[in-house]
């Protein structure tokens, strides 16, 4: 009885005490959550600043755009939100792809030279002058989804002087779990 009395005096039953404790704990946790999330935001690296390169060729793929742009004066801008291509010439090709829509990236380095055609004599001649490889062509293929969910892709040729920077920039902005392995 005493116990019962004292409980009624405080205005709380054993069950309501537990509820009160849980409410206090919940309130404390709720207070801490924005703090934790803001700490996470602070720890997250800021999105990379947009960068632009010339010396990029467009080899087709973008839905609704006809032709290619094989001029090295084309410009490619990579930002956190989009990849923008600006062609040159009389009818310049221009397009923009949202980085969020990109599903895979594939790099390929195609080496050309005396041995490119499997020519043994060419390989021997190349060996005599020190190397059979004259140059490497750098290509990047981006697979992405159109607004209706259907697949599309774009094939770009990069220059030897910018290919590493562009690949790194693309890797930084493309959703990490979706990017394909570099070859």
């Amino acid at each position, binding site marked *: 009885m005493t116990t019962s009395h004292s409980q009624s005096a405080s205005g709380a039953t054993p069950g309501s005490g537990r509820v009160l404790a849980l409410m206090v704990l919940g309130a404390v946790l709720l207070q801490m959550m924005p703090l934790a999330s803001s700490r996470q935001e602070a720890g997250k690296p800021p999105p990379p600043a947009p960068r632009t390169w010339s010396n990029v060729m467009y080899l*087709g793929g973008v839905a609704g755009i006809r*032709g290619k742009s094989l001029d090295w004066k084309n410009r490619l801008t990579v930002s956190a939100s989009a990849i923008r291509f600006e062609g040159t010439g009389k009818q310049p090709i221009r397009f923009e792809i949202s980085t969020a829509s990109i599903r895979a990236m594939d790099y390929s380095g195609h080496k050309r030279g005396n*041995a490119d*055609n499997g020519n043994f004599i060419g*390989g021997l001649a190349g060996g005599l002058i020190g190397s059979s490889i004259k140059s490497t062509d750098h*290509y990047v293929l981006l697979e992405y989804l159109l607004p209706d969910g259907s697949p599309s*892709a774009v*094939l770009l040729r990069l220059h030897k002087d910018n290919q590493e920077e562009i690949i790194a920039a693309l890797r930084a902005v493309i959703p990490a779990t979706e990017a394909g392995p570099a070859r």
Partner: protein
Amino acid sequence: MTRPAAGALLSLMLLAMPCVTADAVAQEPVQCGPEDEKNEIVKPKNKQTVPAPSPGKAMVVVMYKGIMGKSYQVKLSVDGQWRAVLKKNQFSFFEIDPGVRRLCWGGRVAKRDDNYLLLTAQTGRTYYILGTFRDGITELDSKDAQKFTSDYDYVTFAVR
């Protein structure tokens, strides 16, 4: 093995090394058709007009604008399979599935980046591809393409 013979063999191996390594690392961005496939061009007797694609398909029309002199076989592959084989001033057409298609221009043409073309094919559409000896392949609009298809001969091909 005598010492000069062993030296000669070693020299030959060293000279051939770049050939082997270059082939091992070479990667094309778009796979062409099989290199060892031999094809024969077939000329139908009747003049052919380009039909509309079947339901659920897209159509590719390919034309080869050759240069003066002897004409050699050129080929267009889609996703690693030869789909058209032509000589100069000939055209062909075939259906493809919608989606991203990887085109490669091969045969007796120089290996260069103009030989690759990506196409996002849409159902019911017709894509006109012009191939040249020097400048690879590119897509034309239907108006420009009709000039070629009206003058050129329609051909198909068979695998030998």
